[in-house]
């Protein structure tokens, strides 16, 4: 309990009301997460450019891949009755999920650098609250982007997945879960590195090649031997196979369990590492 201070009467004092305040009584962890999530969502809503800017890379990749490669002959292991656009779209969504995850890390770095974290540390706010909020904001951003890309692909490019509405929703949900897991990995990286450039480099030198060394753009069976070997142990292959299987109604759903397990491990390890890194003094 905060003791109420009784202000001395002084009509001209510039700060007469500053201390005359109710005891706000403190807030729970859940309330703190809610307030901090709301804060970032508000910033996002007033500056939607950030969300839209994040769409540039996946949309460009989508256009480039579908325009450049659609006229080439399909590789022998390409699933029957599936257009290249249909094939590649679930992978583009996973790529976008990774980019959005990186943004979560960058958001935390901004908080660390512009004084928000310094402010929160002087308040009775649990250190994990900001991390969870950053993760949740990432989920919202990913969901919005997935929706925009899907609608754009369906209306403009003619994306027509064979899976039903429920399967398509499950596919999007799994993509969101992957974004969530990678988000924790990037939040952890942000909490330890505390600079935005290395995070962006990390995304470029880890995620970008891993996308190509996976089932994202070409079926694994059609990749050169060594690349196929990499693709077989690449977690993204499992993630993409599973989301693709759901959306397009093609084989590969058996990869959903490993994808979920790997995602859960990355989330837990990321959250643990993030809290440890974040607790270090500024």
């Amino acid at each position, binding site marked *: 309990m905060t003791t109420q201070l009784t202000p001395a009467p002084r009509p001209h004092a510039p*700060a007469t009301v500053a201390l005359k305040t109710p005891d706000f009584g403190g807030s729970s962890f859940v309330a703190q997460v809610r307030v901090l999530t709301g804060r970032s969502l508000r910033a996002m809503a007033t500056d939607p450019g950030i969300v839209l800017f994040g769409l540039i890379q996946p949309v460009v990749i989508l256009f480039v891949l579908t325009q450049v490669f659609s006229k080439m002959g399909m590789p022998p292991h390409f699933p029957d009755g599936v257009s290249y656009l249909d094939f590649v779209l679930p992978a583009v969504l996973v790529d976008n999920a990774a980019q959005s995850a990186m943004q979560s890390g960058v958001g935390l770095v901004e908080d660390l650098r512009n004084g928000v974290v310094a402010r929160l540390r002087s308040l009775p706010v649990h250190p994990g609250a900001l991390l969870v909020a950053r993760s949740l904001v990432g989920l919202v951003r990913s969901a919005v982007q997935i929706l925009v890309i899907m609608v754009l692909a369906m209306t403009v490019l003619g994306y027509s997945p064979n899976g039903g509405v429920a399967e398509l929703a499950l596919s999007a949900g799994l993509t969101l879960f992957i974004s969530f897991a990678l988000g924790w990995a990037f939040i952890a990286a942000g909490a330890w590195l505390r600079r935005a450039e290395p995070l962006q480099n990390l995304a470029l030198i880890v995620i970008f090649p891993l996308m190509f060394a996976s089932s994202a753009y070409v079926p694994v069976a059609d990749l050169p031997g060594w690349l196929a070997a990499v693709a077989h142990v690449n977690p993204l292959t499992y993630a993409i196979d599973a989301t693709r299987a759901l959306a397009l109604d093609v084989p590969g759903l058996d990869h959903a369990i490993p994808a979920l397990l790997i995602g859960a491990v990355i989330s837990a390890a990321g959250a643990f590492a993030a809290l440890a890194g974040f607790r270090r003094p500024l």
Partner: protein
Amino acid sequence: MSGLLMPPVTQPDPGSGDLMIEADAVSKSYGTVHALDSVSVSARRGSVLALLGHNGAGKTTLVNVLTTALPLSSGRASVAGYDVTRDPFEIRRRIGLTGQFASVDTQLSGRDNLVLIARLLGAGRRAARSRAEELLELFELTTVADRRASGYSGGLRRRLDLAVSLVGGPQVIFLDEPTTGLDPSSRLKLWEIVEGLVEQGATVLLTTQYLEEADRLADSIAVLSAGKVVASGTADELKATVGRRTVTLTLDSDDAPARAGAALRGAGFAPVGGEDGTRGLVVPIDTTREIADVIRTLDQVGVEITELAFGEPTLDDVYLTLAEQHARIPA
């Protein structure tokens, strides 16, 4: 001038229960570097403690330890009666911190920044909004309240930062170099705000590089150098240890300095100057009260003063002398 005439505040008994800030032999080391070396300071409820020292002296480190942002290496510290190591959350509920760099969310408006902090402290939506409104008015931020803080000038941002640190009505307020980089009128305004807060019973710890600031606001001052407290006391006590105050006079005629000198010596002063035909005279004094004695003495012998200047030891005097003494005395 009011600061100069402030009555000296006697140091409180340790453990009187009214100490809102108490650091007892606090040390903070990074490997072999001692950022803080057995620092002890304290502040009673409703008083202002100034930490004086140059860059790297350890002021901010001490603020960080007391605001529970940084664990201490050894020693003991408590704020508002709570131990910094055992009860950091209890302390954070009772303090406000304005750091050297404005800690506001530049993506949010000034109003949203204030509402955010109130909500984090547990205020309901409506209570948070009214508290924000109150502080916006107090700090004259209403006209920019709904603009993003990223567009604020340095002075505006600092004002918002201070407002944000007062949202919870803190009992103890930490101000880390609050006026560095502020223009003179903003500085004066901030001083008035601090004085207002203290009148309401807040305890303030302020770090500064300016003796003038410590002089005006502080009840007690601790001078830090290389992580150690090299001197502490009231402003007057500190100045008395390092040098004398002086009254510099310019008199109206060539023979005046000789007459004035004799009269002043008769009154117990030790004036310097006036021998080489100049009309100037420098009189060392101990208390500001003696300025009146000097004037009265000259008035009695009919010497007219055309100019009078009062000289104080500066921060440089205090700081350099203390640092030098400190260096000579082996630890």
